[in-house]
């Protein structure tokens, strides 16, 4: 499953991740009946997990009559291309605009946020300085701050300086991500040895040079994980874009789809078919990224929980 065997993989894996793999199953698995029970349970759970996704795929291939009149459990006619065409042309192709916005906010915002987080995590993990404890306390403490408490005043501040309804209102908040900083600190602790920094200093390398040409290079796995999780978080964001973006040309996919689901009650326009096709499409980038970078995000998710 984990096919990547680059050497940095072993050095960068954080210590909290369980490294020991079972070569043989636990004893519970050896009893036939127990094993069968376990398998049936897992298969049922997997069916529960997958059923909505299966239904969504089926629904996205149907035209409106098919959607309302045929059973949701099986295909009826192949209208996926018509649906996609409709989706991309509805309202002058606003859906494409939203997709591009989502990529912009999640991509650029997370990239900037990751760089800042790596520098901060490195600073916190490998230097002693007055106030270090305070900075780390801010990082951990901010996990408990409700989104509303930050977003509402941020909206007011942004509207004072004219940033509301511009891409900056989404991009700037992405730059500061305490959870990314926390992850970056943990990764630094496990992958950047003090001795290496000392050696580089003895060779006369400046601190900036050490960071950019040694630390960042050794942190590619950690950095990728931090980026991936930040990307997913921004892609999934809802409250912030709903609050700071007013005009539909700056919306994200989530806000666009949310708005479309409300159209039916608001103005009687039924966009269910478009919403479902759009929903399916908006999963694709995440699914592709997460599958390609599976090993990164699993360690990230696990690490996040062990904080």
């Amino acid at each position, binding site marked *: *499953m984990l096919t990547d065997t680059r050497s940095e993989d072993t050095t960068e894996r954080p210590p909290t991740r369980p490294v020991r793999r*079972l070569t043989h*199953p*636990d*004893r519970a*698995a050896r009893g036939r009946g*127990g*094993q069968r029970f376990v398998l049936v*349970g897992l298969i049922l*759970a*997997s069916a*529960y*997990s997958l059923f*909505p996704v299966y*239904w*969504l795929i089926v*629904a996205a291939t149907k035209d409106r009559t098919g959607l309302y009149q045929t*059973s949701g459990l099986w295909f009826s006619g192949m209208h996926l291309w018509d649906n996609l065409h409709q989706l991309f042309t509805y309202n002058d192709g606003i859906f494409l605009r939203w997709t591009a916005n989502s990529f912009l906010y999640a991509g650029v915002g997370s990239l900037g946020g990751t760089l*800042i*987080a790596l*520098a901060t995590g490195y*600073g916190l993990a490998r*230097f*002693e*300085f007055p*106030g*270090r404890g305070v*900075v780390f306390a801010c990082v951990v403490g901010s996990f*408990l*701050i*409700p*989104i*509303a*408490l*930050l977003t*509402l005043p*941020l909206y*007011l*501040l942004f509207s004072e300086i004219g940033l509301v309804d511009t891409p900056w209102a989404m991009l700037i908040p992405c*730059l*500061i991500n305490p959870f990314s900083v926390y992850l970056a600190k943990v990764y630094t602790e496990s992958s950047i040895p003090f001795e290496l920094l000392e050696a580089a*200093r003895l060779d006369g390398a400046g*601190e900036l040079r050490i*960071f950019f040409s040694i630390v960042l290079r050794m942190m590619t796995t950690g950095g990728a994980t931090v980026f991936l999780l930040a990307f997913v978080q921004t*892609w*999934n964001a*809802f409250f912030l874009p709903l609050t700071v973006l007013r005009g539909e040309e700056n919306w994200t996919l*989530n806000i666009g*789809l*949310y708005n479309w*689901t409300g159209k039916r*009650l608001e103005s009687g326009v039924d966009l*269910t078919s478009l*919403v479902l096709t759009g929903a399916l499409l908006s*999963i694709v980038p*995440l699914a592709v990224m997460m599958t390609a970078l599976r090993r990164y995000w*699993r360690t990230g*998710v*696990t690490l996040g*929980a062990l904080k």
Partner: protein
Amino acid sequence: MIRSQRWKGAAFTVPFQLGFVFLYLIPIGYAVYQSLFLEQQSGLGLGGATEKFVGLDNYQHGLTDSAFLNSVLRVVLFACVQIPVMLAVSLVLALCLDALTSRAAGRFRILLLIPYMIPGVVAAIVWINLYSPDVGPLTPIGDLFGFSWNFFAPSMVWPSIGNLLTWHGIGYNMVIIYAALQGVPRELFEAARLDGASELRVALSIKIPHVRGALVLTGMLSVIQMLQIFNEPALFRNVTPQTVDDSFTPIMIIYNQAFNAGNYHYAAALSVLLALILGIASFLFYRLTSKEAD
């Protein structure tokens, strides 16, 4: 460490510190400041609005506002049901995975994690349509077995949202609990079995106590999320505004006060209150769950 190096180290954290001040500390301070004022129309509203310092009046109002208190109570009660159910299912699944070979476990783990890869808004859209009497398959399936389900009825809305949240959260929680389970020394299980303990006994007395830390953690994260629930009810409101009113959850009230009622001052006070409730709830949860161990 040499003095100059200390400052260079501190310099690496400067961009974050500046950003934190601008995006966290100033907004929180601003919210607290705003919460102490009230907008007042002077005269007949002709002179425009003036801000008046009212001290803690907004907080007093919030603590006696039945809509706000009800929304907190609603969310807390719901959390008391949904979170234990979700964690119990995740725990059982993690124990099941633990009984398989690592290869088979890996395959099931991916399948069970698929819902977690789906954005929360999309997950809500999918389930709302599954529940929908027009396009969803659940209503005809219910009819087949003689139930006439209405997933959007007042008594069904929380179970409907609960199922959605459980579906979305099982994989994530299972992965964390499974990781903790894998960290337990195998020798412990073998020793217990040699002493004649049944598999159930091993799970109950050894495995589960060893993953308590992970359970406390996932529980706490879920409580924090639940008190701030917004996306799901907001989307349900789009299809069934009679059942899910605009004061269904605390964040919905705050959003409405700020953007529909235009009462930022009161909204700011409510968000400070919510932060305090969140802090207290996490503290209590932590204390209660870690006391059991002593």
